[in-house]
């Protein structure tokens, strides 16, 4: 079940970061250096963003 949660997260992250980073026309099978670092940054900033939100919510006393 933990494996399935992990896989779902990876599927959703790939879906979202694909839309954000892979905006050019498909011309070959490889992802270039810029796309690759965009994907890595996308994953990391998304997690940063989530942590920022959770921290702020806690700070507000879990009013939500």
């Amino acid at each position, binding site marked *: 079940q933990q494996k399935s949660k992990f896989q779902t997260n990876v599927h959703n992250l790939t879906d979202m970061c694909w839309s954000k980073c892979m905006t050019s026309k498909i011309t070959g099978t490889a992802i270039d250096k810029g796309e690759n670092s*965009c994907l890595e940054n996308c994953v990391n900033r998304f997690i940063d963003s989530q942590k920022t939100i959770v921290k702020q919510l806690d700070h507000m006393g879990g009013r939500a």
Partner: protein
Amino acid sequence: ARMLIEKINEKCFEKCIPKPGSSLSSGESLCLTNCMQKYMAAWNTVSAAYITRIK
């Protein structure tokens, strides 16, 4: 509040971080904090309007 966190992160990441860089800039962090407050205010408005309508 899991669903609220997911929705806020989805909407605010999209709006505040169009091009993810090697770290969160201070502008991006500020945008996230503002966006979060704004999303919760929107949630309250929507919730109140929905309750008024369905009761």
